[in-house]
C-alpha cells in the first residue's frame, strides 16, 4: 500500500477524514442558514434567493455531488471508527462513570450522526423533490410547516444537529492538531456558539413559518 493510503487508513488518518469532511459540513450549515434567513424577508426575497440558487445551474449540481461524496465519506468513516472503537473493548465495565471529560455531545456522536443521516434523507426526499415541481417555493414550506408534528420534528432534528456540532467542531480542530489548549480550547467555545447558531437559526424558521401562515 502506498504512503497516502497508509496514512488515511491509520487511526489518525481516519480522524483527519472525519475532521475535514465534518468542517466542510459546518461551512455548508452556515451558508445554508444564511440562505434560509431570507425567509424572514417575506415571500419575494425568499423566492428571489431560490431562483438565484437555481440559476447557478451546473455549479449547484457540482456542489450537490461534492456534498454527497463528503457525506458518504463522513458517514462510512464514522461508522467504521465507531465499530473499531466498540471492538477495542470486548468486555465492558460493569460500572462505568464519566470522570467529567465527556459531554452530552461527545458521548452521543454516533447516535446523533445516525439521526442526522435519517433526517437528511427525509429532508431531501421532501424538500428537494418538491423544489423541482415548479410550485411556489415558499408555498412548499408553508404547506409543510402547517403541520405541528413537522415543526416539532424539524426542531428536534436541529437540536440533534446542534449537539453533533457542539462536539464535532472543536474535535475537528483538536484532530487537525490545532487544539493548543486542549479541553479549555477557544475552539470548544466557538463550537458551542456555532451549535447554538445552528439550533436557533434553523430551529426558528419552522416556528416562524407556521406562525405567519
Amino acid at each position, binding site marked *: 500500500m502506498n504512503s497516502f493510503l497508509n496514512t488515511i487508513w491509520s487511526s489518525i488518518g481516519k480522524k483527519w477524514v472525519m475532521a475535514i469532511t465534518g468542517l466542510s459540513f459546518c461551512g455548508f450549515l452556515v451558508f445554508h442558514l444564511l440562505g434560509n434567513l431570507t425567509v424572514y424577508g417575506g415571500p419575494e426575497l425568499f423566492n428571489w434567493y431560490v431562483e438565484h440558487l437555481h440559476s447557478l445551474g451546473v455549479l449547484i449540481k457540482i456542489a450537490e455531488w461534492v456534498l454527497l461524496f463528503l457525506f458518504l465519506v463522513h458517514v462510512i468513516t464514522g461508522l467504521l471508527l465507531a465499530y473499531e472503537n466498540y471492538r*477495542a*473493548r*470486548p*468486555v465492558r465495565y460493569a460500572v462505568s462513570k464519566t470522570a467529567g471529560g465527556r459531554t452530552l455531545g461527545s458521548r452521543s456522536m454516533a447516535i446523533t450522526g445516525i439521526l442526522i443521516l435519517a433526517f437528511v434523507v427525509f429532508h431531501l426526499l421532501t424538500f428537494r423533490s418538491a423544489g423541482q415541481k415548479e410550485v411556489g417555493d415558499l408555498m412548499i414550506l408553508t404547506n409543510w410547516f402547517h403541520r405541528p408534528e413537522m415543526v416539532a420534528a424539524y426542531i428536534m432534528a436541529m437540536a440533534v444537529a446542534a449537539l453533533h456540532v457542539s462536539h464535532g467542531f472543536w474535535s475537528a480542530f483538536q484532530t487537525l492538531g*490545532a487544539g493548543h489548549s486542549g479541553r479549555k480550547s477557544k475552539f470548544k467555545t466557538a463550537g458551542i456558539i456555532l451549535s447554538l447558531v445552528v439550533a436557533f437559526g434553523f430551529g426558528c424558521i419552522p416556528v416562524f413559518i407556521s406562525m405567519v401562515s
Partner: protein
Amino acid sequence: MSANASKLINLTLKVWRQKGPDVKGGLETYEAKDISTDMSFLEMFDVVNEGLILEGKDPISFDHDCREGICGACGAVVNGRAHGPEEGTTLCQLHMRHFDDGDVVVVEPWRSKAFKIVKDLVVDRSALDKIIQAGGYISVNTGGAPDANAIPIAQEVSDLAMDAASCIGCGACVASCPNASAMLFVGAKVSQLKLLPQGDIESAKRAVTMVETMDSLGFGNCTNEGECEVECPKGISITNIARLNRSYFKARSLFKKGVN
C-alpha cells in the same frame, strides 16, 4: 477528637475474579471489615487478602510496586473510575477516607482489547512497551558526555517536555477512554521527546512508527472525549494528543514511499 481522625469502616467489595487469561471471570462479593480510613486502597486489599489466605482461599491478585504513585504498576477501575474517584492519584494514593461506612465498591481490571487479563485485576500492559520499543527513544553516539549547556532550551519548552514526561505508563488513559484508545500515552511519549532538540531529530519516524504500532495492537481511536486527561494520575493534557496529530501528519508528508 478531630474530624480528620481515623475511624474504622466496613465495605462490601465486588471484585473481578478471573483465574487466568482465557478463563471466564466474574464479580465476587467480599466483606472488608474494620478498614482504617488511613489505609490506602491497596492496604485495604492486603487486609482482605490476609483474611482470604486464613480461610484457605485464593487471595485477590493486583499489580503494585512503589505504592507512592510514581511507578505506574497499580491500577484498577473503582466504581467506574480509573484509579478511583479522586483526581491526580494512582490507586495506591487513594485513601479509604474517601469512602463511607457501608459503601459498595466495585473493582474491575483495566478493560481493553490490547490489555489481556493475567489474573483477577492484573493486566498485561506490554502493549504499551511495544509502542515504546517502536520509537520511544533517541539515538545518540556513545563516548564522552556532551557539555551540559551546549544546546540551549527555553524554560517553557523544557517545562512542557517535563509535563509530558511525567507519564508513568499506568494505562489509566486507555482504561478510562470510552474507546480504549492509547492516544494520550502515545501523545505524551511523542511530545516529551519531540519538544527537546535531542529528540526532535527522529520525531518524524517516531510519530509514524509509534502510531502504526499502536494501531496494530487493537487500541481504539481517539474521539477527543477528554476522559483520559481527567483520569490521568499525572494530569497530562490532551494538548499532547494535538501535538501528536500535528507530528504524525508532518511526518507522513515528509515520508516518501519506501522510506518508512
